[in-house]
């Protein structure tokens, strides 16, 4: 399935303070890729791109520049797209070499957590691709963000030297740590709809009715219905009653979201993957139908999962249009 790429997969963090440290790490990485015939992609802001182009000179023509805001749109989507790129390159016998530029500003704490989780999980997802990923982290970022980067990248780069990162944490352990905090309770008085019948037609009608007044677009409603149907179907098949659905809206720093929660009394087995690894588009995947929970993540703005002896909770978030309820 994977083509022949000689290099091993690498995922390195480039901590930097100021432009010089950034270029000292980034430029050798890019040049080395060009020299090796890699497919070199630089994800960057406009200002960064100019900086890199100036530094690379004519060699910049060998590099694909991608806008960071567009690239880092949704953790599951970005991971899947990048993995597809890596597989496609590997299929051509080329290594994908990607200089990232994770976007941290304007993200809510919950979103930041999901991006950090993606940084960890990609160590598993990309293991066989031979891709080489370098993620610059500015020293000016919040301390928590930089600290997490040390846990999610196996190696650290200083200039043109990479060294093993002693703080690196096993990706699944890191992902579990992301879920250490219990979920806050739903707002007081949120109605819990008990789901007892396996026919989910009525459930979708109920959800559609619940969100009627929320300005959720038709497209988003469809996504929500697909996501809820999938999660409830899972609960009915593998979970334990009682199964309940709760729907509420939430405002966070002026941003409105719709939250849809499915709970059941069962707990998931270890190693269930939680839909974090993008399924590869091949016939085997299709035959086994293994994209359920992964697709749920894609369909929602954000998904939170807690599972254990106390039961399982899956919370699906959809961002609502406008701010402050506009």
């Amino acid at each position, binding site marked *: 399935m994977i083509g022949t790429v000689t290099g091993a997969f690498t995922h390195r963090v480039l901590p930097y303070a100021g432009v010089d440290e950034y270029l000292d790490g980034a430029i050798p990485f890019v040049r080395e890729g060009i020299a090796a015939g890699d497919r070199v992609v630089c994800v960057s802001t406009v200002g960064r791109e100019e900086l890199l182009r100036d530094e690379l000179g004519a060699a910049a023509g060998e590099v694909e520049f991608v806008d960071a805001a567009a690239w880092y749109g949704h953790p599951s989507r970005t991971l*899947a797209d990048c993995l*597809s790129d890596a597989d496609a390159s590997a299929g051509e016998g080329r290594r994908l070499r990607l200089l990232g530029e994770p976007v941290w500003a304007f993200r809510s704490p919950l979103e930041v957590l999901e991006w950090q989780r993606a940084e960890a999980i990609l160590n598993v997802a990309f293991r066989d691709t031979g891709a080489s990923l370098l993620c610059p982290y500015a020293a000016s970022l919040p301390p928590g963000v930089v600290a997490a980067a040390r846990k999610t990248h196996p190696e650290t780069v200083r200039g043109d030297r990479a060294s093993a990162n002693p703080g690196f944490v096993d990706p699944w352990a890191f992902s579990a740590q992301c879920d250490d905090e219990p979920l806050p309770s739903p707002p007081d008085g949120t109605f819990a709809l008990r789901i007892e019948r*396996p*026919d*989910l*037609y009525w459930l*979708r009608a109920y959800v559609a009715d619940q969100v009627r007044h929320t300005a959720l677009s*038709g*497209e988003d*409603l*469809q*996504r929500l*219905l*697909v996501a809820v*149907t*999938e999660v409830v*179907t899972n609960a*009915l*098949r593998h979970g334990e009653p009682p199964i309940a659905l709760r729907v509420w809206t939430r405002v966070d720093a002026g941003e409105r979201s719709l939250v849809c929660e499915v709970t059941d009394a069962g707990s998931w087995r270890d190693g269930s993957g939680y839909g974090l690894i993008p*399924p590869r*588009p*091949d*016939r085997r*995947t*299709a*035959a086994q*139908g293994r*994209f*359920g929970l992964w*697709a*749920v993540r*894609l*369909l929602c703005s954000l998904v939170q999962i807690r599972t254990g002896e106390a039961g399982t909770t899956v919370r699906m978030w959809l961002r609502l249009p406008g701010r402050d309820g506009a």
Partner: protein
Amino acid sequence: MGFPNPGGGVGWTGPAPTPDGHSMDAPWFAKRPVSDVRPGDHGWLAYAGAEERDRVIGTFVREGLRHNEKVVYVTDAPADGLPGLDRPLDGHRIDVGAYTRIGQLRVISRADACLDRRGAFEPAMLADTLGRELGGAFAEGFRAVRLTTDHSWALSGPGRADLAQMLGCEHRVGDTVAPSTMAMAICQVDRRTCSGAELLALRDTHEVLIEVDPEFDDGVLRIVRTFEPHGLRLEGELDGARHTVLAERLAAVNRAGRRVHLDVARLRFIDLGGLNLLAQHALALPADEALVLDHLAPDVENVIEMVGWRRLPGLVRGAGAAGGTEDLGR
């Protein structure tokens, strides 16, 4: 006061076109499964092949026999070879002779039903024939009369009737059937024997389009066989409660070993398991064939694009977007 709507589209609120894969279908026709045909229906069946014809007309004939209705079949074919008569009805072999003797099954030759003495097509005759059968039916103890005939012969081959004559004939039949509380008629034509314009003109003399009975209909999901293109039409919502029934029907149409089309214009919802089910059946087709999704509703297509067509190998997007969903705001 104020100006008229510059677009002129003030009050057009007619139903959206029926998106059943036949672009020539227009909104003012009722479309009915053959078992729902009722008195006053002057129905139209433009069939794509013998299988479609036999399934529709066979049902039409059998339901007439089952429900004490008179069945009038205008044809030169022998009675025991007619659609629907070759299989047992409610567990009993159909005794064509017995039904004929009591007058419940009337097989009338073309010469007697619609040709003049010189053997030429006579537009007025078919309606007269129907009128005659209708007149006696009540006294004979039948609660309704079902008439069917295949016009293909008149529209093809030597001595072809011209279109104006056929239209005249159809108008008269329609005028006889429509006000009746006892008469039902299905006019059949083999699509392949006429031009598109002829089909349209003929169809327009009918009020009801007749199709096969649905394979499945539980009020949430409806599955209907389609014959041209070969496949199924899905309407409503598909989820885990209905995967098994769809899998069975897909396996049946897959057996033909050729390209399968799913008309999903009126499929409002499909769950991830449903998409996966479609992909699995697509993989069961011969390597160079595909499972084609025609007329995808935008919201449903959006979900597929999220998952990625690449992850659903063998599934192919077919003919254009849905034209019939209510929320298109056209």
